[in-house]
C-alpha cells in the first residue's frame, strides 16, 4: 500500500473514469440539444442549448409518477425485508439454534434462483388476489429477491459484534429479545443501514416482475417506464435522454452520499478479515 502514485497513474485514472462515465456524459449532452441536432450531427456541444426535451419527457409520459411508484415500492420492500431479515440474521449468528448451516444454505440458494422460475405462478397468484397494478402486487414478489440478500449481508454485520455484550446484558436480567432490541440491533445500526441501501437499490432496479405485474401506465416503475418511451415507429431520443438524466440524478446523489457504506456492504463476507 506504500506505492506512490505518479503522473502516469493519474492520466490512466482520468481515462478510466472518463470511459466509465462517457455514456452518461453523452446522454447529458444529448438531452440539452434541440430535436433536429440529435438526428443529424455528432457534435459534442450544441450551439443552442434547450430544455425542451425535459419538458417533453415529463409531458409525454408520467415520469414523476413512475418515480413515486418506484420509491414507494422500494421503500416498503426495504422496510419489510430488513425487519424480517434482521430477526433471522440475529438468530443464525448469535442464538443457540440448530441447523444454522442448513438455514444459511437455504437463504443462499434462494438468492441464486432465477426469477423467471417463479414468475408465472406469482403472476397467477397476484392476479387471483386482485393485486395487479398495485404497490403490494410488486412488494410481494420483490421480497423473493430482497429477503435472501438482506439476511446474507446482515449476518456478516451481526457476527462482528462482541459476544461479551450479550453476556453482560444477560447478567443484568435482560430477556433475550430485549438484548436483541436494545443492545445488538442499535449496535449493528450502521450495518443495517448499509443493507437497507443495497436492498433499496435492488428493488428500485427490478424489471421482470414490474414489467409483468403492473401493466397499467399509472402503476409502472422507473425501469419499465423508461423502456416504454420508444413507440413502435419512432424512438424519441430527446425524451429518452432527458428522462434518463432525471432518473439517474437520485442514484448519483445516493451513491455520492453513501459510497463508503455501499462498498462495505458489497464486499462484506467476500473477503476474510
Amino acid at each position, binding site marked *: 500500500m506504500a*506505492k506512490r*502514485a505518479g503522473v502516469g497513474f493519474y492520466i*490512466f485514472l482520468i481515462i478510466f473514469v472518463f470511459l*466509465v462515465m462517457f455514456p452518461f456524459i453523452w446522454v447529458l449532452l444529448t438531452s440539452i440539444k434541440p430535436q433536429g441536432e440529435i438526428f443529424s450531427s*455528432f457534435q459534442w456541444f450544441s450551439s443552442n442549448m434547450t430544455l425542451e426535451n425535459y419538458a417533453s419527457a415529463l409531458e409525454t409520459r408520467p415520469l414523476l409518477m413512475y418515480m413515486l411508484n418506484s420509491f414507494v415500492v422500494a421503500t416498503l420492500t426495504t422496510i419489510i425485508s430488513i425487519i424480517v431479515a434482521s430477526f433471522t440474521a440475529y438468530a443464525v449468528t448469535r442464538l443457540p439454534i440448530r441447523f444454522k448451516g442448513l438455514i444459511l444454505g437455504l437463504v443462499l440458494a434462494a438468492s441464486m434462483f432465477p426469477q423467471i422460475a*417463479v414468475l408465472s405462478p406469482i403472476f397467477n397468484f397476484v392476479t387471483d388476489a386482485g393485486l395487479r397494478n398495485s404497490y403490494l402486487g410488486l412488494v410481494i414478489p420483490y421480497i423473493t429477491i430482497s429477503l435472501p440478500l438482506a439476511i446474507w449481508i446482515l449476518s456478516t454485520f451481526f457476527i462482528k459484534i462482541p459476544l461479551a455484550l450479550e453476556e453482560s446484558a444477560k447478567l443484568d436480567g435482560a430477556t433475550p429479545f430485549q438484548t436483541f432490541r436494545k443492545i445488538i440491533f442499535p449496535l449493528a445500526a450502521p450495518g443495517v443501514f448499509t443493507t437497507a441501501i443495497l436492498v433499496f437499490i435492488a428493488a428500485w432496479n427490478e424489471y421482470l416482475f414490474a414489467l409483468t405485474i403492473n401493466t397499467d401506465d399509472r402503476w409502472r416503475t422507473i425501469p419499465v417506464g423508461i423502456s416504454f418511451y420508444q413507440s413502435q415507429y419512432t*424512438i424519441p431520443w430527446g425524451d429518452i435522454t432527458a428522462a434518463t438524466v432525471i432518473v439517474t440524478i437520485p442514484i448519483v446523489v445516493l451513491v455520492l452520499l453513501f459510497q463508503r457504506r455501499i462498498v462495505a456492504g*458489497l464486499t462484506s463476507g467476500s473477503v476474510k478479515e
Partner: protein
Amino acid sequence: MKQPKKRRFQLSERQLGYAMVAPSIILIAVIIIWPIMLSAWNSLFDYRLNDPAKAERISTLSINLETYADNRYLVYDTMEDIRSAMPDAGGTLDDIATALDEQHETLLNSDEGLAGRYEEVNTMLENYQPVNDDELRLTEVPEEWADGFANTLDEQTAAVQALREDAPEEAVQPLTDLESQLSNTKGSILEPNFVGLKNYTSYLGDGRTWTAMLNTLLFTVVTVGVELIIGMLVALLINRVFIGRGLVRAAVLVPWAIPTAVAAMMWTFLFDGQSGIMAHYMAQFGLIDDPGTLLSTGAGGMFSVMFADIWKTTPYMALLLLAGLQTIPRSMYEAAEVDGANKIQQFFSITLPMIRSAILVAVLFRALDAFRVFDLIYVLTGGGPANSTESISVYAYKLLFEQQNFGAGSALSVIVFLSVALLSTIFIKLIGSDLFSGRLKQ
C-alpha cells in the same frame, strides 16, 4: 394462603431463535419454493392462457360448471326469443329442450352433491359473482356422459342450422346466437391437458431453445471472463494511495447502481445505426463496415449486449477484487522481493492464491447473474435480430407472456432453474466452506 406465583411470559434463547427464523423460512417457502414447484407442475400440462379449453390445468375429464350454467341459462333465454320470432319452430325447440334437459338430469345425478353445487354456482352467477373456487367450479365427469353430451349438442346444432335455412329475417340473429351458445356449452367440457414431459421433449428438440441456451452460455462465459480480467487489472492498478479515491469510487459505483433497463436504453441510443455515437465512431475507425451493423446483425447485436454488460459490471468486479487485494499484508511482497521474485512471479504466487476465494465468490455471483440475464437483452435488442441474442430467460418470458403458453414457458423456466442449480453446486464445491465463513462461528 399461598400467593399465586406471578409468571412473566418469556422465551428461552433457543425458542426465541426459532421464532425469529420462522418468518423468513415461511416467506421463502411460500413465495419461492412453492412457486418453483408450481412451475414444475405447470410444465407438465398443455396450459395456455389464450385458449379457453386449456386455460387451466385439467388432470381428468371435467366440466366447468360456471360456463355450463351460464350457457344453459342463455340457451333457454334465446329459445324464447326464437319462439316469438318464428312460431313454427316450436316443435324443434321443444325437442332441443327435452334433449338438453335429459342430459342435464343425467349429469346432476352422476355424482352425489353435484346438484347442490350446480345450484350454488347458479346463485353466484345470478348475483354476478365470479366463481373463483376451483373446487366448486370444476367437476370430474364420466366419459360416457361427456361423449353422449357432445353428440347431443352436435345433433341440436345441426337442427338449429336446418331451422335457419328458412327462417324469417328477425329470427336469424337469435338462431346464430343459439348456435354459438350450444358450441360454448360444448366448451364447458374440459379434456385433460396433462402431457407429461412432452413440453420438455418438444422444446429440447427445438432449435430455438438450443440457440437461446448457447447464447446464454456464450454471454455468461465472455462477459464474466472479460469482467474478471479487466476488473483485476483495474484493481491492481488502483490498489495504492492516491488523491481522489472517493471520487473514483463514486464514478465506478454509478454504472452498477443505475437500473439495468435504463443502462440498456442508454446503450440502445449509443449503438443506434443513425444517431448512435458508438456506432458512428466504430464505423469511422473501420471497426465495422456500417454504423447499422451493430444492432441489425446477429454478431453486432451479441457484441452490443456483451459490451453494455461489461461496461456496467466491470467496475463492480474491480471493487470486489480490490477489497480482496487490500487484505494481503504488504510484508508478504517485501519478503518475496528479498527472495528476488519479480512482479509477475509475485502475482501468481502471492496475489492469486491469497484472493482465490474472493475471486471465486465474485465469479459465482456474476456468473449466476449473467446466466439469468433478462432486462439488458430484452430492452437493448429484444432478443433480435432474428433471435440471435435471445437468452433462455428472454425466450421463456416470450413463451409465457407473449404467446401465453404457460406450459411450455414453465418447462423452459424449469430448465433455467436446473441449469442455475447445477452451476451453483459446481461453484460451491470449488469454494467450499469459505462461503459461510464470516457468517457462522466455526
